C-alpha cells in the first residue's frame, strides 16, 4: 500500500506530458496543418510571453502565494517602455523623451521590481492578504497604464528594441531561445539552489521552514520581486513581437497563466510542482489554441474551451490534494488517538 501511493502521485505529477501527447496526436489527426515545422515554431513563438509570465507566477505559487497583478505589470511596463522611447503626439503617442532602448529596458525592469516590492512588502510586513493585495494592484497598475497614454496605443518603437520579440538567429526566433533559456534557468534555480529549496519549504510548511532556519518573509518578498521582474522582461518580448505598446496588453491573461502552471503540476496550495512541468502546461495551452485555430473553430468557442481547460486544471489540483488526504487523515486520526 505504501509503495503504491507515491507511484500514483508520481503519475498525477507528470500527467501533463501524457496530456500533451494526447493533444498533439489528436490535433495532428484532426488537421493536417498542425504537425508542421512552421506551425510548431509558431506555437513556441506564441508561448514565449505566456511562458515567461508562467515562470514568474510559478515562483510565487511554489511558496503558497500568487500574483494576480502580474498581467497588469506586463501591460504597464510595456506601455511605459514604449512611451519613453517614442516621439510625442500623433502617430507615435509617446512622451517625446526618445529614451535609448538600453536605458528603457533598465527603467522597465526597475518598474517591474518596484511593483513586485510593493506586493511583497504589503503581504509580509503589513500581513495583508495576498489575494486582496495583488487584486488591488491588478486594478491600480492597469489604471496607471491607461492614465499614462490616455488609453492611446504607442507606435513606432525603435527597431533595435524589437529584436528580442521579433528577431531570429538563423532560422530560430530569438523569443523561442529566450523561452527555453528562461525555463532552463528557472528549473536550475528551483531544483539546485538553496533559494529554490527554501521556496518549496516555505510553501510546503511555512512553520517548518522557519524552524529550519529559513526566513519565510524574505523569501516571499523575493518571489514577488522575481514575478515583477519577469513580467517586465515579458513586456520587452511582447513589445517586440507586437511592435506597438497597447494599454490592454496582458488583460485577462492571469487565468491562462495560472492554468498553465497548475496543469503543469504547480499546486495552488504551494510546495509542489516543477518549472519543466509548468513549461508542459504552457505548451498544452498553446497546442489547444493553435489546434482549434487551425480547425477554424470560432473565437468565441475557443474562449469557452480555455475556460473549460482552466476549470479542468483546478479540478485536477484539488483532486491531487484530495488523493493525498487519506494519508493526512490517517495521521490526524492517529494524533487524535494519542
Amino acid at each position, binding site marked *: 500500500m*505504501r*509503495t503504491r*501511493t*507515491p507511484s500514483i*502521485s508520481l503519475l498525477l505529477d507528470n500527467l501533463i506530458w501524457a496530456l500533451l501527447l494526447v493533444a498533439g496526436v489528436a490535433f495532428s489527426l484532426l488537421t493536417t496543418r498542425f504537425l508542421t515545422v512552421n506551425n510548431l515554431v509558431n506555437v513556441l513563438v506564441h508561448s514565449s510571453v505566456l511562458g515567461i509570465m508562467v515562470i514568474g507566477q510559478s515562483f510565487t505559487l511554489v511558496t503558497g502565494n500568487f500574483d494576480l497583478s502580474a498581467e497588469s505589470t506586463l501591460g504597464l511596463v510595456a506601455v511605459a517602455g514604449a512611451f519613453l522611447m517614442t516621439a510625442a503626439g500623433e502617430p507615435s503617442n509617446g512622451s517625446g523623451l526618445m529614451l535609448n532602448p538600453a536605458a528603457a529596458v533598465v527603467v522597465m525592469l526597475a518598474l517591474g521590481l518596484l511593483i513586485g516590492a510593493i506586493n511583497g512588502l504589503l503581504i509580509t510586513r503589513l500581513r495583508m492578504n495576498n489575494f486582496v493585495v495583488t487584486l488591488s494592484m491588478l486594478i491600480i497598475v492597469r489604471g496607471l497604464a491607461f492614465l499614462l497614454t490616455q488609453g492611446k496605443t504607442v507606435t513606432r518603437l525603435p527597431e533595435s528594441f524589437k529584436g528580442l520579440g521579433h528577431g531570429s538567429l538563423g532560422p530560430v526566433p530569438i523569443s523561442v531561445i529566450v523561452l527555453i533559456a528562461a525555463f532552463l534557468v528557472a528549473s*536550475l534555480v528551483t531544483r*539546485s*539552489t*538553496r*533559494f529554490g*529549496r*527554501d521556496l*518549496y*519549504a516555505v510553501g*510546503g*510548511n511555512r*512553520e*517548518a*521552514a*522557519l*524552524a*529550519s*532556519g*529559513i*526566513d519565510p518573509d524574505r523569501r516571499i518578498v523575493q518571489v514577488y520581486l522575481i514575478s515583477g521582474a519577469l513580467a517586465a522582461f515579458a513586456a520587452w518580448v511582447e513589445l517586440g513581437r507586437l511592435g506597438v505598446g497597447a494599454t490592454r496588453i496582458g488583460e485577462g491573461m492571469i487565468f491562462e497563466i495560472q492554468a498553465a502552471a497548475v496543469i503543469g503540476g504547480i*499546486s495552488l496550495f504551494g*510546495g*509542489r510542482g516543477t518549472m519543466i512541468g509548468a513549461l508542459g502546461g504552457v505548451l498544452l495551452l498553446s497546442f489547444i489554441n493553435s489546434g482549434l485555430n487551425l480547425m477554424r473553430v470560432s473565437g468565441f468557442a475557443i474562449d469557452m474551451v480555455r475556460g473549460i481547460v482552466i476549470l479542468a486544471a483546478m479540478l485536477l489540483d484539488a483532486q491531487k490534494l484530495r488523493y*493525498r488526504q487519506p*494519508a*493526512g487523515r*490517517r*495521521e490526524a*486520526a*492517529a*494524533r*487524535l*488517538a*494519542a
Partner: protein
Amino acid sequence: MDAQPYLVEMKGVTKEFPGVRALAGVDFRLRADGELRGLVGKNGAGKSTLMNVLTGVFPADAGEIVVRGRSFSRMTTTLSRQLGIACVHQHSQLIGPLSIAENVFCGDLPTGRLGLVDWDSVHRQAEERLGRLGLAIDVHRKVEGLSVAERQIIEIAKALFAEAQVIILDEATAPLPKHDVELLFGFVRRQRERGVAFVYISHYLEEIFELCENVTVMRDGRAIGDYRVSELTPQALIRAISGADVERFRHAAATVAGPPVLSVRGLSRPGAYADVSLSLAPGEIVGLTGLEGCGKDSLARGLFGLEPVGRGEVLLEGKPYRAADPREALDRGVAYLPRDRHGLGIVGPRSIQENITLPILGRLTNLLGLLSRRKESVLVSELIASLDVATPSAAQPVEFLSGGNQQKVVFAKLVSVRPRVLLLDEPTQGVDVQAKVEIMRIIDRLAREQQVATVVISEEIRELLDVCDRILVMFRGTIAAEFPTRDPSTTVERILHAVEGASQP
C-alpha cells in the same frame, strides 16, 4: 421489560490505526440514572479514541455500542446526536461574533411571517431556556466577550437543548482558571441532578476526585480499571494510570566532566517564565516537565529564537548567547524539535532528502551557488541508515511515512546541523510504543557519542525517568523542583506532586 441498568454500554470495542492499536476490546458503561464518570489515562491511552467511537467520529473495527437497550454495531455522528450523546471540546465550537441567543438557536432561528427572523422571540426563548437550566445571563452578549468557562457552559446548555443525555467533556478545564472551574463544576453537578450523565476526561487528577463519582482508567488501548472515586487514593490512581511499560529503555549516564555547554542564569520573560536558571553538561540529558502553560515550551522556543527570550544571562560554551531567529540558533549549534510535527517539523510534500538538508543547504552549496547533489545524497543516506528510517528511497515524500519515521526524519534534520544543544519538545508524541523506544535510543546515542547536551520537554514522566539524567519540574514559570533520576527516592508520584505544585512530602 424492565428498565435498562445502563444508559450507554460499550462492549469489546476495538479500533486500529495504521501501526497503532488504539483500542483493544474496551468495555465502558454509564448508569441509566445519570452519573459523573471520569475517564483518565496517559496521552495515547485511548480515551479520546473511545469517545470518538461513541460519538461516531471513528467507526469501530469490532465491538458493540448499546444505548438505552438498542444495540448498534456502527455508530455515526448523526445517529449519536439523535441518541442524545454530545461532546464539548477544549476549544469552543461556538461562533464568536454572534450573540449567545443566536448561538443557542444556531441553524434553527425562529422565523415569523415572511420568513424573517423573529428576533424578539429568539431572545425571549433563549432567556427562558437558559433560565430553566438556572442560568441568568444577558443573551444579547456576544460569545467572543465571554470567559472560557461561560462559553463551555453555553455549549453544554446547547447540547442539553438538543435533548442530550450523555455529555462528554474532553479536557474541558485545561484552559480554565481555578475560579472558573468551580463555576463549570457547579453547573455540571446541577445537570447531573436532573439525570444527565457526564464523561469527564482530564489530566488533572484532583478534579476527578472533586467532581466524579466513578472513574475508568485506560492504558495502552485497554480499560484496565473501574473504580469508585470514594474508595480510591490519588497514589493508587496514579499507579493505575502509569502502570508498567511494555518495554523499557534505560539511559546510562554519559555526562563528561568539563564546563557546561549551556548555562542559563536568571532568565525571565513576563507571562512565560521567571528567574529560570539551569546548566547543561556535555552529553547530559535533562528532562523538563510541568503542566500546560508552566513555561517549559516557551523556554525552549525562546532559546531557539522563535520567541523573544527575555531578560537574563545565557551562555553557550562560555560565550553570551541569544538567538534573534532560528537561523542564528542553528548556526550556533542549537537545534529544536517542535512539538507539533505536522505544524513545525516536516514539509509534507517534499522528499526525505530535501527535509533533512533544509537547515544546512548553505554548507552543500558550491561557489556557483549550486547544490552538490553528490555530497547531499551521501550525507542523507548516512543519516537514513544511522537513524534507521524505514523508506524505499530518500526521494520519498515525507507525508507518506508513518508517524515514527517522520519523527526520525526530523531527528536526522537536527543531527545534520551537528548540534551542541538539542531542545526536544515532546519528541515521542503521537508515535507508537516501538518507535518511542527507538527515538529514546537516538536521544541517548547522540548524548553518548557526540556529547550533545539535550533538553527533553515532556509530560510523560515515566519516559523522562528512563531517558534523562535529571528532571526539572516547572510550575507557573519557575523551576520548582529537581530530581536526579538515579536517586532511588525519585518516584513518579513525587514528580507528579511537584508538577501539580504541591510542596514536597
